[in-house]
C-alpha cells in the first residue's frame, strides 16, 4: 500500500513540475514578441518613461497612423517598403518553387551518377554566409546594373531558396508512391500528365509549405538586401527598419509598429504551414 502511495505522490509532483516548467518556457518565448506588439500601441513618452510604466496608461494607434501617413513618421515610406517586400518575396517564391519542383522531382524519381554529391553541392551553396556572398554580388550587380532593382533581389532570393526548396520537395515527392504515377501512365497519361494530374496534387500540400518557407526567408532576409538595395524604390521592410534609427536615437514606437506589420503575414503563413513543414524537413532528412 505504502509503495503504491509513494509512486502516486511522485507522479503528481512530477506532473506539477512539468506544468510549471512548461509555463515558464512558453512565457520566455512569448514575452519578447508581445512586448513589441504592446509597445507599438504606446506613445513614445510612455515607452521611454523613467521609472518604467508597467501598466499602459493609454493605448493608441498613433504609431500606425504615422506609419501609413503621407509622410511617415520621420519620413519612412513604409507602404513603399511593404510593396517592395511583397513583390520581391512573392515573385522569388514562385520562381523558386518552379525551379525547386523540377529539381526535387529529379532527386526523388531518377537515379543517376553522383546524385549524392550534386545534392550536397546544392545544399552547400546555402551555407555561404550572406555577408560573404554580398561582397562579390555587390560587384557583379553593380556591373550589370541590377543593383537597387527588384529583379536583382528576386534573382538572389531565388538562388537562396532553391536548395532548401529542393530538399523539402524531394522529401514530399518521395512520400508519393511511384506506383501512383505508373498507374496513371498505364491508364493512358503521358509522363507530363501523370505528374500534373496525379503526383502533383498528392504532394501539393508539401509544395505549398516549401513555398511558404521560401516566402518567409525572402520576407525576412536582411544581410543581402541591405547591400543590394539603395533607394526607396527597392528597399524591403527589414532594411526599412533601419530608417527608424538615427545616429543616437531610435524611434522605438514607430519601429515596433513596422515590426508588427512585418510579423503578421509571417505569422499567418507559418500557422497555415506548420504541420507540413515539420513533416517535410524530417522526411527529407531522415528517410534520406
Amino acid at each position, binding site marked *: 500500500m505504502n509503495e503504491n502511495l509513494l509512486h502516486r505522490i511522485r507522479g503528481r509532483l512530477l506532473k506539477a513540475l512539468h506544468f510549471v516548467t512548461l509555463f515558464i518556457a512558453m512565457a520566455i518565448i512569448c514575452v519578447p514578441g508581445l512586448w513589441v506588439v504592446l509597445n507599438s500601441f504606446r506613445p513614445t513618452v510612455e515607452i521611454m518613461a523613467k521609472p518604467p510604466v508597467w501598466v499602459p496608461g493609454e493605448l493608441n494607434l498613433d504609431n500606425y497612423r504615422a506609419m501609413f501617413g503621407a509622410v511617415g513618421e520621420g519620413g519612412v515610406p513604409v507602404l513603399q517598403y511593404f510593396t517592395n517586400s511583397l513583390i520581391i518575396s512573392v515573385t522569388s517564391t514562385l520562381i523558386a518553387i518552379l525551379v525547386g519542383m523540377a529539381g526535387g522531382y529529379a532527386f526523388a524519381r531518377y537515379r543517376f551518377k553522383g546524385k549524392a554529391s550534386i545534392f550536397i553541392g546544392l545544399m552547400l551553396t546555402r551555407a555561404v554566409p550572406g555577408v560573404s556572398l554580398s561582397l562579390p554580388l555587390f560587384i557583379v550587380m553593380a556591373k550589370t546594373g541590377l543593383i537597387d532593382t527588384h529583379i536583382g533581389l528576386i534573382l538572389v532570393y531565388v538562388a537562396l531558396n*532553391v536548395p532548401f526548396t529542393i530538399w523539402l520537395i524531394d522529401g514530399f515527392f518521395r512520400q508519393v508512391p511511384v506506383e501512383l504515377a505508373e498507374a496513371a501512365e498505364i491508364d493512358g497519361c503521358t509522363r507530363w500528365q501523370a505528374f500534373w494530374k496525379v503526383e502533383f496534387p498528392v504532394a501539393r500540400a508539401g509544395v505549398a509549405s516549401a513555398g511558404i518557407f521560401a516566402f518567409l526567408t525572402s520576407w525576412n532576409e536582411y544581410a543581402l538586401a541591405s547591400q543590394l538595395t539603395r533607394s526607396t524604390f527597392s528597399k524591403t521592410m527589414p532594411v526599412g527598419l533601419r530608417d527608424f534609427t538615427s545616429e543616437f536615437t*531610435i524611434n522605438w514606437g514607430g519601429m515596433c509598429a513596422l515590426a508588427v506589420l512585418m510579423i503578421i503575414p509571417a505569422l499567418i503563413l507559418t500557422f497555415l504551414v506548420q504541420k507540413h513543414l515539420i513533416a517535410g524537413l524530417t522526411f527529407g532528412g531522415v528517410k534520406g
Partner: protein
Amino acid sequence: MSRFRPPPWLVLLLPAIIILTAVVMIPLLLSLYSSFTPYRLTRPETLYKWIGTFNYEKAMKSAHFWAAFGRTILLLTIALNLEMLMGLGLALLVNKVTYGQRALRTVMMFPMMFSPILVGFQFKFIFNDNVGLVNNALQSLGLSNVAIPWLVDGQLAFTAILVAEMWSSTSVFAILILAGLFAVPRDPIEAAKVDGCTPWQSFRHITLPYIMPFIYIALAIRSLDVARAYDIVQIMTNGGPARRTELLWTLIGRTGYVDAKMGYANAMGYISIFLAIFFTIYFFRKLNAARSELGMAG
C-alpha cells in the same frame, strides 16, 4: 543519326544549376579572384593587380581577425550546444502534453517567424540600459539599483547576443526534435519500461538514439543558416563596443563596405565560407552515422 538528348534528370536540374551558378558560383569565383588582388571599390583599376596570397597572410597576421574568428567559433559552439539542449528540453516538455499540444507547438514556432534583424532590434530594445525590459524589471523588483550596461560592456554584450540568438533559434531545434519524438515507435519505449528502465534510462538508451538523426538534421540546418547571427549582431552592437563583440561576419562587412577593402574582405569571406561548410559537412556525416546506427541508411 540520333541527336544527343540529355537525360531527363539533367533537364529538370538545369534551372537550379543555372541560377545557382549565376548568383552564387560566379560571384564566388569573382570573390576568390579578387581576394588575390588589393581591390578597393573606390579604385576599380586595383582589380587587375595580382598580389598573391597577401590578403590571406594579412588576415593570418591580424589580431583583429583572430579575435573575431575565435569569438565566432565560441559563439557558435555555445549557441548551438545550448540551443540543442534547450530545444531538446522544450521538445520533451511539449511531447508529454496530451491536451492542447497543437496550440503549444504553434506558440513554439513563434520566434521562427521573426526576421533576424527584427530579433536584433527587439533585443537591443529589451537590453537597452535605459528603457529596456530587462533593466526595468530588475530595478522594479529591486534586484539591481543601477542600470546594467548590457550592450556596452563586452562580456554582457556577448551574453545579450547569445540570449537573442538562442531565443530566435532554439525553436528550430525544438520543432525538429519534437518531430523526432513523434517518430519514435512506442513499442521499444514500452519494452524498455517493462525491461526495468527508469524514465531516465529509457530516454538515455532508447529515445536518444532514435532522435539523434533529428538532432543532427537540426544542427545541419542551423549550420547552413548560421550566418543569421550576423543580422542580430549587426543591429545589437555592430561588433562594438570597440570591437569587443566583433564576429567574422561583422568584420567582413565593415572591411568590405565601410573601409571599401573588397579584396581583403573577400579573403576573410572565403575563410568564413569554409568554416560554414566545415560545420555543415561535419553534421551531415554525423547524421549519416546516426542513421546507419538505427539501420535506417539507404
